[in-house]
């Protein structure tokens, strides 16, 4: 009996996914537990298993396309049975997002007597979805719903014909910016031609207008998630900010010394900050809190969230138990985690459970900035660039180096004095790191 394999809910907040890449093709025999596709969820690109076994009869979703959780991904059955009724039912609207622990349900096939026609020629290529025939090839291509281009779904693979790549490269056009209308979202020559034709055109009669067209850039999953979570944070959490200036000399000296002793370890001030945050979070329980409407959760372990900028947008992986780890281990783990985050290869559980987030823009000339709290955490630290300044002490001017830390706090849990005490402790510890040992 053939059945429709449905898109599983791969994370608790997932409502839809993008089918990045099929790992099986029509005609393959598969076993229960086999990975059939890579699916991009709201969190990461994940392997999708199936519990069905049999022959893959039909793939229902093209690579690069979105599908709702619970909608049909593919039809599995025996090699020969008639699947026409299943194909028809799969074409109807996908079901709404189900509860978290739903498993795919096998749909009974209704036997029909539709004859299968033998193929008339040996296909040399993927067949595109049926489209209205053009009467003249020279005119604009017929309207076909374009599948989302490979570039939009994820940052790794891009499907474009060799010719399209060549034409784009010769024109200096980034092929990743072109939307593909070929099978599976393949970018083909006419797509590149369209993109080039739509590019910034020189003005016609009105010589002072720089003409161009407004483009509608589709949202990646990451962008959607950032948008909804940060709006939620700003609207529900009463933010306030506390700001301190940290003298950097001690940290910079410590960094230099560690680098000398361990030349292969790329330690930076950020690693010291992360460690300090973790130790102080253990010392200041108010920092390890989460608002839960009718109670406050107190977290046992200092997991520190690190904000990482990727090509698709900001993601926030979590380093675990940082208070218990040495700096060298922190350097290694963070490098590995950030690398995987950039490739969108973190597991969902690595994106949750943080106590406090570090957002560092010190690699840019940012003096000071305020960050938005990463729910359900209760505070976030925003770090600016190290700057040389003149400091006044006892009436004397001395040059030195410092950077800003601005802490945004959830006033429902962390009152001003509490936050200030924490920040004072942090400042002291960063300026005299041995205090962290106490």
């Amino acid at each position, binding site marked *: 009996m053939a059945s429709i394999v449905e898109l599983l809910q791969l994370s608790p907040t997932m409502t839809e996914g993008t089918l990045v890449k099929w790992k099986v093709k029509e005609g393959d025999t598969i076993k229960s537990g086999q990975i059939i596709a890579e699916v991009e969820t709201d969190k990461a690109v994940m392997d999708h298993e199936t519990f069905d076994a049999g022959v893959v009869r039909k793939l229902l979703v093209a690579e690069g396309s979105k599908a709702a959780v619970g909608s049909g991904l593919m039809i599995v059955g025996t090699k020969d049975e008639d699947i026409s009724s299943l194909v028809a039912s799969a074409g109807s609207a996908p079901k709404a997002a189900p509860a978290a622990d739903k498993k795919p349900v096998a749909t009974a096939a209704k036997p029909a007597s539709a004859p299968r026609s*033998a193929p008339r020629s040996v296909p040399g290529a993927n067949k595109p979805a049926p489209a209205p025939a053009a*009467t003249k090839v020279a005119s604009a291509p017929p309207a076909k719903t374009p599948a989302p281009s490979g570039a939009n779904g994820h940052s790794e693979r891009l499907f474009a014909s060799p010719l399209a790549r060549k034409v784009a490269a010769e024109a200096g056009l980034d092929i990743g910016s072109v939307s593909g*209308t070929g099978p599976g979202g393949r970018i083909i020559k006419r797509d590149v031609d369209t993109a080039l034709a739509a590019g910034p055109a020189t003005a016609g009669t009105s010589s002072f207008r720089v003409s161009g067209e407004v483009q509608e850039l589709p949202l990646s999953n990451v962008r959607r998630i950032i948008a909804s979570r940060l709006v939620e944070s700003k609207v529900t959490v009463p933010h306030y900010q506390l700001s301190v200036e940290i003298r950097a000399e001690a940290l910079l000296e410590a960094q230099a010394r560690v680098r000398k002793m361990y030349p292969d370890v790329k330690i930076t001030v950020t690693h010291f900050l992360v460690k300090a945050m973790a130790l102080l979070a253990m010392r200041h329980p108010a920092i390890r809190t989460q608002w839960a409407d009718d109670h406050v959760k107190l977290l046992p372990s200092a997991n520190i969230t690190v904000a990482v900028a990727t090509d698709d947008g900001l993601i926030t992986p979590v380093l675990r138990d940082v208070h218990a780890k040495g700096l060298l281990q922190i350097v290694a783990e963070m490098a590995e985690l950030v690398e995987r985050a950039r490739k969108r290869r973190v597991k969902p559980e690595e994106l949750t459970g943080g106590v406090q987030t570090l957002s560092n823009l010190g690699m840019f000339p940012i003096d000071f900035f305020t960050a938005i709290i990463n729910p359900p955490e209760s505070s976030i630290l925003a770090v600016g660039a190290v700057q040389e300044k003149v400091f006044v002490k006892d009436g004397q001017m001395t040059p030195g180096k410092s950077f800003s830390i601005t802490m945004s706090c959830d006033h429902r849990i962390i009152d001003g004095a509490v936050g200030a005490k924490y920040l004072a402790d942090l400042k002291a510890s960063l300026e005299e790191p041995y205090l962290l040992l106490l």
Partner: protein
Amino acid sequence: MATELKSMREALNRAIAEEMERDERVFLMGEEVGVYKGAYKVSEGLYERFGDKRVIDSPITEAGFVGLGIGAAQLDVRPVIEVMTFNFAILALDQIMNHAAKLRYMSAGQIRCPIVIRGPHGAGGALGTQHSQSLEQQYVHCPGLKVVVPSTPQDAYSLFKASVRDQDPVIFMESEKLYNFKAEVEFGEHMVAPLGVGDVKREGTDVTIVTYGRMLTHAVLPAVEQLESEGISVEVIDPRTLRPLDLDMILNSVRKTNRMVLVEESWPQASVGAWICEQVYAKAFDHLDAPIERVSHLDVPMPYAPNLEEEIIPSPATVVDAVKRVLYI
């Protein structure tokens, strides 16, 4: 420059006669070629004109008379061996592949084998499974042989004369269904065409169709008519010689049109067309806007029923479909 409307049979007949006239070392041998005037009447009149020492009826033993021809070719004679169809030449494969193809190599160039083995192959119209096979793939695969597949009476005339004059074994593969096909032919010494050079049967800009043999007239040209009426400009390349192949002509065309459809009267698996496509992928990869479409037989033995035979070989409709696929329409 005068052309005459001739059938392929007539063009071949004249080509054989002219070569036999020009060079007394040329002789024709095969089943029924003499007294019976040829199983398909290709050699009609030759026996009367040249006598039984130059037009020789052989017994029904392909390995025997092909082998005899190969032996003769080594003694500065110019045999033209007719096989009634290439389905039967399978019996002579040992002679052809192990001897004709290898003599020059194994003798370090001292022994040449200037033989032409000619005859029809492919679907002939309800001839049955064992008599309808397209077998060019067997010969194209083998170094030491040359393989010619003419699609028009002109090509048959021009290339046959060149094949006889070639110093190496040439497998000259005709089609029963083309013997009656008539087209304009220009005769004469100046019309001898070199082996290994293809022909642009039709110029175009949107897509390249590569085809050879009967499929040019049976499937491709009718398809082209329909496509042109829809505004699609098709370039048709006929390699004419399959080994050695005029790959450059094909590549230049693909670089121009960026799309290719290959139409062959052949089973699909490991066919000559499959190899040609591989070469185009390897050498014109950056010029392809779509994967190459290949229109072949269905992968089944040929049925006896004529309506099924038509279903199985490429048709104008299947060629039109393939062209539209590479154009994404």
